[in-house]
């Protein structure tokens, strides 16, 4: 099989969010689409206690030759796919660099301390400003809002995958993703998820 050419090797993608947002599913599906292109994908993630309302990250290393560390070295993320804006910032502070790109779902999930009034969640303007300074290119998209219109907030992660595909950074095609949807979720769920994928792609292409 001819292996797709990568703009960086390994290409380092971090999918981040809050436990329960569907990080793991998103990273698995992306990983499978890329593997079907003949690429090597190493995914690092944590689950268990960390899933209970905590910050979660999946590290994806995409390479033409072999496995890499399941933890991306500091300062080496090429793309951050964030299901939650504060988590985008948290990841960029550690893994960002002048060339880093980010796709950010604009729907905040307040930490328990912020709900309790012990800390302040940064304002949208503050967050946007900081994210802009820490990225070379950035897309802020209303993924949760669109997902709710599709029927459930969990579609946000598929919308995000669609957005990532539309950047053209990684060889994730609509057809490849459709095949993975069919394999992972079965025929009944393909149509809505593909709609979510298209919505995400359109928000980056516009």
């Amino acid at each position, binding site marked *: 099989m001819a292996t797709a050419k990568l703009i960086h090797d390994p290409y380092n993608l971090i999918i981040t969010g809050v436990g329960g947002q569907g990080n793991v599913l998103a990273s698995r599906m992306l990983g499978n689409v890329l593997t079907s292109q003949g690429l090597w994908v190493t995914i690092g993630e944590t689950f268990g*206690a960390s899933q*209970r309302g905590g910050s979660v990250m999946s590290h994806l290393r995409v390479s033409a030759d072999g496995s890499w*560390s399941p933890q991306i070295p500091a300062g080496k993320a090429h793309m951050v796919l964030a299901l939650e804006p504060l988590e985008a910032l*948290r990841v*960029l502070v550690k893994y960002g660099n002048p060339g880093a790109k980010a796709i950010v779902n604009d729907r905040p*999930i307040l930490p328990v*301390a912020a709900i309790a*009034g012990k800390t302040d969640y940064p304002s949208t303007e503050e967050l946007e400003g900081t994210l802009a300074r820490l990225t070379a290119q950035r897309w802020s998209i209303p993924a*949760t809002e669109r997902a*709710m219109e599709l029927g459930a907030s969990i579609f946000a992660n598929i919308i995000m995958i669609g957005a990532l595909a539309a950047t053209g950074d990684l060889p994730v095609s609509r057809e490849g993703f459709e095949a993975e949807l069919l394999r992972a979720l079965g025929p009944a769920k393909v149509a809505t998820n593909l709609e979510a994928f298209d919505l995400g792609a359109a928000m980056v292409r516009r």
Partner: protein
Amino acid sequence: MEGQRQTMMGNQAITQGALEAGVRVAAGYPGTPSSEIIQNLAGAADEHGLYVEWSINEKVSLEVAAAASLAGLRSLCAMKQNGVNVASDFLLHLAGSGIRAGMVLVHCDDPGALSSVNEGESRHFARMLELPLLEPSDFQEAKDMTKWAFELSEEISNVVMLRSVTRLSHASGGVVPGTIPQAQGKAHFDHHGTLLDKGHGPVSSSPVVYKHRLQQEKLKRAVELFEDSPFNSYTGPEAPELLVITSSICNLYVKEALALLDASGRVGVLKLGTTWPLPPKLLQHNLGRCGQVLVVEEVIPFLEENVKIAAAEMAGEIGAKRFFGKRDGTIPAQGELNPDIVLGALADILNLPYQARPPEYDLLAQEAAPQATQDRDLAFCPGCPHRASFWSLKGALALDARDGFICGDIGCYSLAMRPTGYGMLKTLLAMGSGAGMASGFGQLGRFGMDQPVMAVSGDSTFYHAVIPALINAVHQKSPMSLVVLDNSGTAMTGFQPHPGTEANALGQPVPPVDIEAICRSLGAEVTVCDPFDLEATQAAALALLADQSTAKVLILRQLCALSPQRKGTKPYDVQVDPEKCLGDQCGCNRLCTRVFGCPGLAWEKQSGKARIDEVICAGCGVCASVCPQGAIIKSERA
């Protein structure tokens, strides 16, 4: 799909290796990061003719697996790191007696305690109990090594330990699967030989000294095989400046660090897959390459110490070496490693400069850090019954007003040591230790202690290790109360069945073992309550505290919010009536958001009132009982 590379989770690769080895029986107890191994094997049981069970605890699971091996079937046992402590008494004796068909113990450590309350090292059991130890360093090896572990086990007639870590078990990478053989062989336990007849006699570790000698001979045979094992490899220049010796997933951290430093031309890497006992000839050959050695491993210096012992024994041949590792502080001996820590160590030793990103960007990141590092503390899920349970227990202990406290245990409810559970747990140690310690605190009244003590336990933990502690409390007449937080599944690790559930690991119907009946049969008074009924739960907890003349049990039963039965269902529509919510003007001082603290609630800054976040709310309706104004309205969904 045989022969085609797939991206597999480490635990799935281990499963695949076991299936390719023709494993027939598998048993374990759930524990992160090991749980998916037994789960996946249970999923494959029908197709490949396996028996798979979630046992009541790790020791029993090892006994179940051993029975299969003695009856001629290959078997696997899987557990997390501290599970080996639980199983170790049996393992000591089994190691002394030996096994028949191949038997592999997979133990998954959690360096950095990503999902544990310890970062205990299970590798030491291999040395202490004199069993061979294998450590896969990537995903393909996890599969291949598991398969080979069964062959090794049969070659030496003893258990083989295979150690994974969270960053392998829960990471995913490329694996080419092989062929899974047809299940074959009838189970039969041959016991008619003499005690010394290892293939046909009764099974025991005695006569001890004789069998111990046999066991050590087996280990020597393992070392011979390790000398030529393809799982040990050297990459790098013939005579490097520095030799790195590493094992497990740390191998990939070393690969990454050398690539970033562009130092592959100066450093050689000896990657060891067979880490106990170490093969001396292989070590001698590689230690002879240079005078400086860095050992990279997690967590405490196990490999490092063993390499140093070997180096001392061969000092005449290889000369003195300068060692770097954990003993000299080059690499920390706590927490997990990552490419950056390894890179830092290598850069120091080789005196190489390294900058991950430009200093200007570092400055920007530093400026953003105060916002970004805002803590996102772990929290009970929206709709979690534990939040309601601890709310009521908190109320009861406050009303009781004798400085009472709760001994905690292991499960999601361990989070009650944190703000999400109102900091209610005052001890949190091992499985079953809440009840055991409460039983002990209860006895201290004779020394003047006048604080009432409660213990909590989840349902799965109850079966695993709480029952003996409860029997102890009843028998010793310890004035303690046990609160069983029964959410009807092993929620923390992904809803594995346990003896209280109506189906086993294979999905077959089984008679549930009733917690309530067990407690009553021991002579404990039992009350059962729905924790979502805050008033009744607090009253029941207060009653427990009021009379501690005998051991009492309160069972708080409500399904986990993430359970397959409840997930995605919303029993109630919950809303805040903005007319009734007095907001900042109310005397409650934001009781719902500031104190109760469910993630489904939010405080509107503009209006100064509470609001329900409909994306997050699970519709349990408990907050409606918390609001003193009755401003949170729950209505049953059609």
